[in-house]
């Protein structure tokens, strides 16, 4: 398994504010990595650094290249969708296809045709005449037809309705993803990517606070739901967080003994949102 992205001590300051503060992480090929963090945590800055759009301090190699110095070369192997609204409004659908075919050596026109054929998009339309969902479909058709090793998605479904969001991720998984490809995605809608991720990166205040494969989450983190009379005993086991839900107490543990928890109540696997609260909002808040 090859390392696609290697970041060490990535730092970027805008004036006094540090958007990235020594972020260190790696992304291996064939993975679908979710980069999750609250607003202003440095997600977008990290993606910009990876895409060569912003210069950062620290070490950063993407596909063995320095992204800022070699952006044009990097973009032959890396695609990205910043968010759905960035296709220029004056561009016609056919022009968009022709342009990408003209400038991108790894673009497969036949694949793009296949994707477009499944939509109701008229080739003669300008982007501004398309609905937001259609613009996403068009952008996705263009990007999925590029034989790239890394696809970066920054809030790709922002502002889309539920149906379009679902279609977006379905196409991505069914028509695009394979062992050779890697996806790095940021989103606020954690629930909708929960089931497709293979790895999780939490970022907070410019630092990586959690870096784990999804499959090891159940080994490390457990959620315990207990009746109020057991809450005291549950607190003794040093949970990361505690909250109350419908009269019951919900605790999240890191590295706890599952058998000890089983004796107190119902043990569940925590969701990404639960982990997010524990890791980022921090402790017993």
């Amino acid at each position: 398994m090859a390392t696609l992205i290697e970041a060490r001590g990535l730092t970027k300051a805008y004036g006094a504010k540090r958007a990235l503060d020594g972020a260190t992480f790696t992304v291996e090929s064939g993975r679908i990595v979710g980069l999750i963090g609250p607003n202003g945590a440095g997600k977008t800055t990290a993606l910009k650094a990876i895409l060569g759009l912003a210069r950062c301090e620290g070490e950063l190699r993407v596909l063995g290249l320095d992204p800022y110095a070699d952006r044009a070369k990097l973009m032959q192997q890396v695609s990205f969708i910043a968010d759905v609204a960035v296709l220029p409004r004056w561009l016609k659908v056919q022009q968009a296809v022709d342009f990408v075919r003209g400038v991108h050596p790894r673009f497969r026109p036949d694949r793009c045709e296949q994707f477009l054929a499944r939509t109701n998009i008229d080739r003669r339309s300008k982007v501004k005449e398309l609905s937001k969902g259609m613009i996403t479909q068009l952008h996705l058709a263009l990007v999925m037809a590029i034989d790239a090793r890394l696809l970066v998605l920054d809030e790709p479904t922002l502002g889309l309705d539920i149906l379009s969001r679902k279609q977006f991720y379905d196409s991505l998984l069914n028509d695009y993803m394979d062992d050779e490809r890697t996806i790095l995605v940021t989103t606020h809608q954690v629930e909708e990517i929960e089931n497709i991720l293979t790895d999780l990166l939490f970022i907070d205040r410019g630092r990586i606070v959690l870096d784990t494969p999804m499959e090891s989450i159940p080994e490390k983190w457990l959620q315990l739901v207990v009746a109020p009379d057991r809450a005291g005993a549950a607190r003794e086991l040093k949970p990361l967080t505690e909250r109350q839900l419908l009269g019951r107490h919900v605790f999240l543990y890191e590295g706890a003994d599952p058998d000890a928890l089983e004796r107190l109540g119902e043990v569940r696997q925590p969701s990404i949102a639960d982990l997010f609260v524990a890791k980022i909002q921090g402790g017993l808040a």
Partner: protein
Amino acid sequence: MNSSFAWLIRRELWESRAVWVAPAICGAILIIATLIGGLQVGEVRIANLADPAVAAKIEALGGDAIPRLSRLLLLAIAVPFYITVMFTQFFYALDALSSDRRDRSVLFWKSMPVSDAATVGSKFAVAVLVIPLVALAAALLSQVVLSSMVALKLSGTELEFTQHLWTAGTWLPAIGATLYGALAVILWSVPLVGWLLLVSAVVPRSPFLWAVLPPLAVALVEDVLFDSSYFIHLIAERTLGVFAAAFSGTEQVGATVRIGPEDGLPPRVEHLMQPVEFLTSADLLGGLVVGALLVAGAIWARRYRDDNG
């Protein structure tokens, strides 16, 4: 890479229809103005050529007067196209590196394997080459159309003018001067386009105001503090000054093309051109160097600027 650059140029033409719309409008105005009788060089109105009294006056100049006048009229037709080029370049270059940051589509363009140097280069090439060449083609076409209109108007008359309308002796020097004028406009525009591209790449928004207000402010301050107008003259020189730099005696042309023997013969168009002086002038060569630096600055700014402004 070469074919990729051609696609970048094509992209510009998809977006900026003014490249061909502006010269088309210019040509249409000239044709309509001629039909109404408004096109004038000195005291010669094209529509008046059919007027026997005017024609007689011109013929009275004798000798070479008529072919000389014909060539000047043909060159004069190109001048509004040169000015159209300047306006088109101004708005095109100001928009070139800012409109896609405004609508965030810069992120789409930057997701393509195209270097910032190639992107800026394609926009520079459109501004200094494509825009003038399209306008040049429109100017040449207009010369033919307007000459045909004159020919139509004069057909059936015995005027000597008709004999010179379609001769190589009239057209070759006129076309030569028209091409030379276009070359001068192209070379002269390099620093101005460079400046506009830099402004377009750097400023967060409102490139028009950024390009126009600071120079106006400088000129105003200069006027108030020093009671001089050096800066305004500099701007005039770097724009419309191309005609004075590339042609000699432009200010006299209007005055010399008088109808009447007392004013002498109109000048020969080929004597108006001063290519050696122009191409070796410090103003032009210095402008090219400054232009190259400004374009390099625009490439640098394009790299670090993104949708964050």
